[in-house]
């Protein structure tokens, strides 16, 4: 097709089962301007090299499977259109997580970190007959945080997380914590705030804004962490009540 544009996919490939080091490989595929990079990857797997390995599922930015480093920046392959990329597209697995194969990384440490902050709503007593009420204004406080699809782009982009993977909770966990701490229905906010205020929590964030820059869901990640910091300081200075 004439409107097709030839794209070069330069992909960092590594099968730790067979090679001791990663290698770079280049594929040439044609992609419509409005096609996604994921379409290109599928085309490569279907036509050129069936062993190319990557994750994919929903293909429209709702599941977070195809997070990878695209031209040096973490993003979702299904959300990056061909027209918005240069002729050579460089793809690497997400940094900071162990590589399983090609563009697939081990997300277990990431989910484990999220699990550490008690990511569930804690009720204060038996629930009422009907729904608990929550004003639209109160709901707005968590509107940003509930957009998270846990793709790992933010955490993997964070230099602090990369430096101390086994220590720092990482931005995604903090967003998850904020989702509950700012939820007017949550009774466990105080305990959870203590948790993220520990030495591996919010204080490790130096407002580097990498997470904010890469978030495919446009969540103000750094802003949310700053809110947590303010809340933690307020809680230290003021008598205990739920600050905004």
């Amino acid at each position, binding site marked *: 097709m004439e409107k097709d544009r030839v794209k070069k996919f330069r992909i960092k490939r590594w099968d730790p089962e067979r090679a001791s080091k990663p290698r770079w490989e280049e594929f040439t595929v044609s992609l419509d301007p409005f096609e996604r990079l994921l379409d290109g990857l599928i085309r490569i797997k279907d036509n050129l090299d069936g062993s190319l390995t990557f994750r994919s599922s929903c293909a429209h930015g709702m599941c977070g499977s195809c997070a990878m480093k695209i031209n040096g920046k973490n993003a979702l392959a299904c959300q990056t259109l061909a027209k918005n990329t240069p002729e050579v597209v460089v793809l690497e697995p997400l940094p900071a997580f162990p590589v399983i194969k090609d563009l697939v990384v081990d997300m277990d440490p990431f989910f484990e970190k999220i699990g550490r902050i008690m990511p569930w709503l804690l009720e204060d007593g038996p629930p009422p007959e009907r729904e608990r009420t929550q004003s639209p204004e109160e709901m707005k406080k968590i509107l940003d945080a509930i957009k998270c699809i846990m793709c790992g782009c933010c955490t993997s982009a964070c230099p*602090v997380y990369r*430096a*101390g993977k086994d*220590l720092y909770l990482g931005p995604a966990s903090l967003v998850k914590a904020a989702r509950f701490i700012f939820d007017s229905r949550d009774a466990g906010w105080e305990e959870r705030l203590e948790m993220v205020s520990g*030495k591996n929590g*919010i*204080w490790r964030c130096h407002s580097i804004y990498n997470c904010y820059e890469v978030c495919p869901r446009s969540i103000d990640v750094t802003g949310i962490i700053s809110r947590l910091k303010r809340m933690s*300081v307020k*809680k*230290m200075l003021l008598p205990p009540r739920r600050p905004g």
Partner: protein
Amino acid sequence: MRNLGATGFFLERASAILLVFLLAAHFIVIHFQGAGEDAWSHGAIFLRLSSPLWLVFYIIFLSVLLYHGFYGLWGIAVEYVRRVSLLAAIRACLVAVSLALWASGIFILANSQMLLANPPALCYKCHARGSIPSYRAMRFFGLHRPWQGAQTERALENFPASGKDVESAVTDPRLKVLSFTGSATVGWGLKRLACDK
């Protein structure tokens, strides 16, 4: 360990805000005089240390600076050091070094107070240049007439002054010798005043 993080973070920020003012004062008084100026000459420092306000200033400056700096270093250590025991050792080191530095600073200040009580005899020199920043800063802190309240014997060397301040300096009976750099008119006027003594 209740919310130590928040306290540390808060103190770090608070000390940072303090440092902005303290460092501004420090730079204006010491470093912005031009390289040839004598704001950190032995005499000038002793002059400042003779004032309790400056003494307090230096104690606060020292403490805040050390807290801010060493808390910062500790923060970096927390980020990169995984082994708990090593981290504890680093923490102990940082605390020890910062305390030692603080103690030596305090020792220097105390030592200066002892020297002030028993000073070597020196002449007083006056710079009648009211426009320079250090003068304005000293005026701001109410320290622009350092000889007032000073003992006769105290060493006083090279301070900035202008207009009325100079007049009061020249007429002050405790000032014995006056050297002057500045414009001729002012110089001659001063000479006349001094002759009246």
